[in-house]
C-alpha cells in the first residue's frame, strides 16, 4: 500500500470509528422512535459513507455488507418498511461486523476474512416482508437488484443522482463525496416533495438521459418551487462546508505543546502585571492590562481547542445499556443531560473506562428485573440518568439509577467478611460511610459473579482512576429508591483552580477539588477549639469530630504533640481524600487562584507529599500538596483504619446531633442515652427494690416498674453498698422500664452518635464526648433485658423497632 493510500485509510478509520459510535446511538434511539425520518436519515448517511469509501478503497467485504444494510435503511427511511426489533438487532449486528472489519484493518492493514454470509442473508431477508404492498413497481425491481448487489460489488455509472426510495445500485458509485447530501434527499427531508416525484425526476435523468440537474427537472415538473430548490441548495452547501471546510484534525501533541506554552505565557503575564502595578508608569500599566486580557483570552481559546463534549464518551453507552439490559433481563431507559458539557480530551479519555464501568454496574446491580420492580411498586422500566455540568471550575458527572439502591447492612457484612473493617469500627460508622466502602480495594457487592461484572475490576479501580486525574468520586444511596454516584474532575490538568495558604512562612497550594471548606479560628478559638484525643488533635466542626493534621508537623518543621503552644490564630483547610475528611492546620489562607502545574524534578519524586509546583504572581515557586499522601503520611487516612484516632473520625462523620444524657455505669464507665428515650429520672432507696422471680422491680406511680441494672446487663458488677439508686425511666406505649445506673452526670448537646444494630454487646458504639470516651447504650436491648415483652404491644413508631420480632 502506498503512503498516500495509507494516509487515506487512517483518515477513513478515524472517521468511521466516530461514525460507528454515532450509529450505535442513533439505532438505539430509533428503537424507541422507529418513525423518525431524521434518525433514519442520519443512520442511512453513515452507512452510505462507509460503503462509499470502502468501495473507493477496494475493501470489498466492508462494501458488500454495508451495502445490504444501506438497502434496508433506505427502505426504512422511506417508510416502505418499519423498524422492528428484529431489524434493529440486525442493523446493530451490522455495526458490529463493520467494526470488526475496521478493527482488523487497523491492526493488520487488511480486511481479513469474516463470515458475513449469514448477516448478509439476514439483512436481505428483512427487506422482504412488507415490501410488496407499499412500494411502487420500480422499487420492487430495485429491491431485487439491491439483494443481488449485496453479493457482487455494485456496478453502475457515476451520475449526479439523488437518492430516492430504492435507487441504491447507482448510488454505490458515488463514494468520494460522502458528506455531500443529495438534493433529492434534502427536498424529501424538507417535506417539499413526494418520493414519487423525485423518482420520476430521477428516471428522467437516468432513463431518458435528461442531463439537467434534478432541481431543475423537479421545478419543470411543477413538483417544487424555485425558491424551495434554492433553499435546499443552500442547505446542501452549508452541510458540505461544515463537514469538510470548517474543521481540521490537529495532533493532540501539538495542542499539548501549545497548552504548555500558554501556561508559560500566563505566568509571565502574572509577573509583568504585578511588576507593572508597582511602577507608576501609566503607559506600561495600560500595556500590562492589555496583555493581561489577551493572555486570558488566549489561554481560554487554547483550552477550548482541547475541550470535547462528554457526549463523545457517552455515545457508546446507549448501546452498552441496551445490550446489557437484554443480557440481564432488565428494562432500562438511558437519559442523558448535559452531553454538551466539555472537558479536556486527556481527562475525557481517562474517565471513559470508569464511566463505562459505573454504567454497567448500575444496570447489572442497581436496576432490578421488571418483575421485581413491579412487585416493589415501581414502573417496569428502570431509568438510568447521566448528568454532566460545570460547577466552580470542575466537571460534575452523576450516574443515577432508580434501582434497588445499596443495602448498607449488606455492604457492612461484606466489609466485615473481607476484613476491611472491624465490628467495632463498623458499629460507629454512618450510613454514607458504610455505603462508600464499596470503593475500598477488595470489595465487590455482587452476590453472584455474573458475566457482566465481578471480573475483579472493582469500584476501587474506578476510584483510583478518578483520583489519578485529580478527581473525586462518592456514592449516595437510598435502599429501594436507587443510587447516585458523583464524580468531580477538574476541567483540565495543566491549569487547575487551587487555594493557596501560608505555613511556616512559605506558600503552598492545594487543588480546589480536594477542598471541602475553610475554617478560620482566632486565637481564643484556636486554643479552645482544638482538642487532643490520645495525642491526636481534633476539632469539633458542627458537632462532628474532625481529625486534624498540622501541616508544619507533616513538613517536619515542628513536633506534633499535645504540648504544642496555641498560636495567635490559624486556619483549618477541611479536605476530602479517600472518602474521608480531615482538617489541615495552616497559618493563614491566602487566595483562591488558577495555577499552572509544573512537574517536580527527579530529586523530589520520592517525598510523596507534593504533586508538583507552581509559580505565583510574584515569580516565587510554591509547592502543591498531594492531599491523599499528606493524609496517608500523617496517619489520618491510615489504610487499615486501625488507629483509635481514625475511629474518632469515623464517628465524626455522622452529621446527626442530639441531646444526650450522660450517666455513670459500674465503677467508671461513662455512657450516653439519647435524651429522647429518657422519660424521667428517678431516685429510689435500695430497700424499695423487690424481687419478682429473677427480676427486680419497684413500685412506681401505682405500677410495677421492671428494673435492669445496666452494669450487670453490660457485664460489670455494681456497687452493692449504696443506699439509694439512680434510675432512668423509659416509657413507651403505656409500658415503663427503669434502667438502674450508678450516677447521672450531665446532659450534653455537644455530641456525636453513630447508630448501628450490628453490635450485640448492648452498645451501639462509642464516641468522644467532652474529651472522654463515652459508650452509646443500646437502649432497646437494655429495655428488653428488663422486660422481654416490652415492645410486643407497643405501637410501631420508629422504624428502628421493626426488628423486635427477632426478640420474641
Amino acid at each position, binding site marked *: 500500500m502506498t503512503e498516500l493510500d495509507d494516509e487515506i485509510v487512517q483518515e477513513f478509520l478515524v472517521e468511521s470509528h466516530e461514525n460507528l459510535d454515532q450509529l450505535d446511538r442513533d439505532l438505539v434511539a430509533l428503537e424507541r422512535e422507529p418513525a423518525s425520518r431524521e434518525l433514519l436519515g442520519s443512520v442511512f448517511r453513515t452507512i452510505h459513507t462507509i460503503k462509499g469509501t470502502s468501495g473507493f478503497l477496494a475493501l470489498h467485504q466492508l462494501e458488500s455488507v454495508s451495502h445490504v444494510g444501506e438497502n434496508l435503511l433506505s427502505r426504512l427511511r422511506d417508510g416502505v418498511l418499519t423498524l422492528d426489533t428484529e431489524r434493529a438487532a440486525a442493523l446493530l449486528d451490522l455495526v458490529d461486523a463493520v467494526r470488526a472489519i475496521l478493527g482488523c484493518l487497523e491492526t493488520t492493514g487488511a480486511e481479513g476474512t469474516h463470515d458475513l454470509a449469514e448477516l448478509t442473508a439476514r439483512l436481505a431477508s428483512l427487506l422482504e416482508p412488507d415490501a410488496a404492498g407499499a412500494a411502487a413497481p420500480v422499487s420492487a425491481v430495485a429491491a431485487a437488484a439491491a439483494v443481488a448487489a449485496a453479493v457482487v460489488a455494485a456496478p453502475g455509472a457515476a451520475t449526479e443522482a439523488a437518492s430516492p426510495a430504492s435507487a441504491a445500485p447507482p448510488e454505490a458509485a458515488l463514494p468520494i463525496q460522502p458528506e455531500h447530501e443529495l438534493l433529492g434527499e434534502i427536498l424529501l427531508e424538507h417535506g417539499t416533495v413526494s418520493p414519487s416525484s423525485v423518482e420520476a425526476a430521477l428516471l428522467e435523468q437516468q432513463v431518458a438521459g435528461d442531463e439537467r440537474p434534478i432541481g431543475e427537472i423537479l421545478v419543470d415538473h411543477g413538483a417544487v418551487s424555485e425558491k424551495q430548490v434554492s433553499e435546499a441548495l443552500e442547505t446542501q452547501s452549508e452541510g458540505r462546508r461544515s463537514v469538510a471546510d470548517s474543521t481540521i484534525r490537529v495532533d493532540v501533541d501539538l495542542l499539548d505543546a501549545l497548552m504548555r506554552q500558554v501556561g508559560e505565557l500566563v505566568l509571565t503575564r502574572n509577573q509583568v502585571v504585578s511588576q507593572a502595578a508597582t511602577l507608576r508608569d501609566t503607559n506600561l500599566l495600560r500595556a500590562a492590562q492589555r496583555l493581561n486580557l489577551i493572555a486570558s483570552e488566549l489561554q481560554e481559546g487554547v483550552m477550548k481547542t482541547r475541550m470535547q463534549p462528554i457526549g463523545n464518551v457517552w455515545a457508546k453507552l446507549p448501546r452498552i445499556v441496551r445490550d446489557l439490559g437484554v443480557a440481564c433481563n432488565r428494562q432500562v431507559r438511558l437519559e442523558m443531560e448535559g452531553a454538551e458539557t466539555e472537558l479536556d480530551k486527556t481527562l475525557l479519555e481517562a474517565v471513559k473506562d470508569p464511566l463505562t464501568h459505573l454504567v454497567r454496574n448500575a444496570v447489572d446491580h442497581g436496576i432490578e428485573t421488571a418483575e421485581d420492580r413491579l412487585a416493589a411498586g415501581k414502573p417496569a422500566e428502570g431509568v438510568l440518568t447521566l448528568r454532566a455540568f460545570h460547577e466552580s471550575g470542575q466537571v460534575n458527572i452523576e450516574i443515577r439509577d432508580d434501582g434497588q439502591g445499596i443495602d448498607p447492612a449488606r455492604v457492612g457484612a461484606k466489609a466485615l467478611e473481607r476484613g476491611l473493617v472491624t465490628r467495632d469500627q463498623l458499629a460507629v460508622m454512618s450510613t454514607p460511610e458504610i455505603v462508600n466502602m464499596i470503593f475500598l480495594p477488595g470489595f465487590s457487592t455482587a452476590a453472584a459473579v455474573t458475566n457482566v461484572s465481578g471480573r475483579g475490576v472493582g469500584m476501587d479501580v474506578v476510584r483510583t482512576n478518578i483520583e489519578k486525574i485529580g478527581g473525586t468520586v462518592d456514592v449516595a444511596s437510598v435502599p429501594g429508591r436507587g443510587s447516585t454516584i458523583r464524580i468531580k474532575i477538574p476541567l483540565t490538568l495543566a491549569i487547575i483552580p487551587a487555594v493557596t495558604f501560608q505555613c511556616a512562612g512559605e506558600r503552598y497550594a492545594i487543588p480546589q477539588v480536594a477542598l471541602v471548606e475553610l475554617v478560620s479560628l482566632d486565637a481564643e478559638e484556636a486554643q479552645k477549639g482544638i482538642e487532643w484525643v490520645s495525642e491526636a488533635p481534633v476539632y469539633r466542626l458542627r458537632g462532628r469530630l474532625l481529625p486534624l493534621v498540622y501541616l508544619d508537623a507533616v513538613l517536619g*518543621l515542628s513536633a506534633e504533640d499535645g504540648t504544642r503552644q496555641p498560636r495567635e490564630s490559624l486556619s483549618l483547610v477541611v479536605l476530602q481524600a479517600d472518602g474521608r475528611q480531615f482538617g489541615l492546620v495552616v497559618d493563614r489562607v491566602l487566595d483562591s487562584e488558577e495555577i499552572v502545574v509544573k512537574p517536580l524534578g*527527579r*530529586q523530589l519524586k*520520592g*517525598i510523596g507529599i507534593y504533586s508538583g509546583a507552581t509559580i505565583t504572581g510574584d515569580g516565587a515557586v510554591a509547592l502543591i500538596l498531594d492531599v491523599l499522601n499528606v493524609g496517608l503520611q500523617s496517619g489520618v487516612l491510615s489504610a487499615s483504619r486501625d488507629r483509635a484516632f481514625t475511629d474518632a473520625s469515623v464517628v465524626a462523620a455522622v452529621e446527626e446531633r442530639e441531646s444526650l444524657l450522660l450517666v455513670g455505669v459500674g465503677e467508671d464507665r461513662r455512657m450516653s442515652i439519647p435524651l429522647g428515650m429518657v422519660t424521667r429520672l428517678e431516685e429510689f432507696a435500695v430497700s424499695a427494690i423487690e424481687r419478682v422471680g429473677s427480676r427486680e422491680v419497684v413500685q412506681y406511680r401505682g405500677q410495677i416498674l421492671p428494673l435492669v441494672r445496666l452494669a450487670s446487663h453490660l457485664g460489670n458488677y455494681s456497687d452493692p453498698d449504696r443506699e439509694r439508686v439512680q434510675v432512668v425511666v423509659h416509657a413507651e406505649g403505656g409500658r415503663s422500664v427503669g434502667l438502674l445506673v450508678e450516677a447521672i452526670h450531665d446532659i450534653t448537646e455537644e455530641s456525636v452518635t453513630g447508630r448501628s444494630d450490628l453490635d450485640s454487646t448492648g452498645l451501639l458504639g462509642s464516641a468522644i464526648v467532652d474529651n472522654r470516651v463515652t459508650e452509646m447504650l443500646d437502649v432497646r436491648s437494655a429495655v428488653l433485658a428488663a422486660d422481654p415483652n416490652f415492645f410486643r404491644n407497643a405501637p410501631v413508631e420508629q422504624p428502628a423497632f421493626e426488628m423486635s420480632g427477632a426478640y420474641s
Partner: protein
Amino acid sequence: MSSTTTTMNQFSTFRVADQLFGVDVGRVQEVIRYQPMTPVPMARPAVAGLINLRGQVVTAVDLRVQLGLPPRAEGELPLNVVVRTGEEAVSLLVDSIGDVVDTTGDLFEAPPETVSGPARELISGAYKLEGKLLLALDVDRAVDVDRTS
C-alpha cells in the same frame, strides 16, 4: 592515557570552598546569579530549594552539602550552574564562577589521594593546570541526592 592526549575538553569552572571544579561545557545550560529559593521540607538535605528559571521549576542542589563541606558563611549567596541531566535541568549551587577552561587529556589524572570523602565519589579526575588543580565533576553523580553521604 596516551590515546587521549589529543582530545580537547572545555570546562565551565566554578569554586566551592576554594576548590576549583569544572563541568563539561556541553552539560551546562546556563550560569545565573543567586535566585530566591523555595525550600522543600522533607526533601534530602542536599536539596536547597526550588528556583523559578523563566517559568520552569528547577531543583537546586547544594554542592557544599553534596561534597560534605561546611555550609556557606552567613550572608554569602550561592550562584547557580544550571546543568542538563536527562530531560530535566538541575541547578548546582556554587560559591563563585570561574572562566571556561580548555584542557587536554594529557593533563588528566585520576582523583588525587588528597581528595577524600564524598568529594572523591563526585569527581571523575583532576586536570593539572598551571598553578592550580581543576577537579572534573561527574554531573550525574553530583545531582543524585539519594547517595548515602
